[in-house]
């Protein structure tokens, strides 16, 4: 079984969990600090990520001592160092290409937010569970999923966010 088959067999929720767990392990390995919670949500050909408690103790200490500007500089430079590896991790997990990634962190709250833009919607077993995935109006079956970037005349499939499996 190749990687592509593996991804196709998984649900959106499973893939989101996998990305969350891998990012958590990635932070732990490289920064020696594990975010307490990572939330991932696919929407169309994009992925939103929120990492809680993502700021390391030395950075927090700087901020507590009034060195907020330096703490922000450290975080910004750390993000630049981590970025290529994070992109690779996401590409490998979802079998898609990343064409853009925006991220920012708030030192005071310890939260990091990221928005990742893919070259196409990831292949999943239940594409209807991904909000904003577009389908042709004639046939809404999963196999009829079409790429959002290529079709402008279709309607969006809205998910209520539950039962992602």
């Amino acid at each position, binding site marked *: 079984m190749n990687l592509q088959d593996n991804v196709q067999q998984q649900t959106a929720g499973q893939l989101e969990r996998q990305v969350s767990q891998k990012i958590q392990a990635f932070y732990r390995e490289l920064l020696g600090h594990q975010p307490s919670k990572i939330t991932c949500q696919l929407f169309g050909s994009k992925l939103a990520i929120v990492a809680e408690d993502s700021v390391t103790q030395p950075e927090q200490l700087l901020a507590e*001592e009034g060195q907020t500007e*330096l703490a922000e500089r450290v975080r910004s430079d*750390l993000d630049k160092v981590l970025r290529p590896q994070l992109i690779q991790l996401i590409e490998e997990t979802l079998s898609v290409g990343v064409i853009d990634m925006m991220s920012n962190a708030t030192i005071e709250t310890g939260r990091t937010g990221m928005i990742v833009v893919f070259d196409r919607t990831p292949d999943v077993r239940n594409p209807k569970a991904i909000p904003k995935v577009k389908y042709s109006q004639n046939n809404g079956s999963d196999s009829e999923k079409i790429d959002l970037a290529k079709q402008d005349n279709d309607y969006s499939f809205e998910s209520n966010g539950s039962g992602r499996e």
Partner: protein
Amino acid sequence: MSNLLSNSSMTAEDCLKQSIQDLYVKLFDHSISEITCWSMTEGVVTVVLEDVTTLPERLLIEGGYQQTATLFRRELMQIFKKRLKSVF
């Protein structure tokens, strides 16, 4: 530190090492691999800490952000020194 010394058989040197290690872990979530302390003259203690660089600093250096890492280290040591004085 005075509590540690009075409640155990630890030497003053061991006690100092332990206090430094505890403070470093508490502040930076990082363990120092080796701490060496010695007193050459009365009232002066020399302390050498090995592997003090935290993972975020190391990552900055490896990623080419030497200047940020240097500023970061300088500030962390200022904070550490300030807190260490309050331990004694």
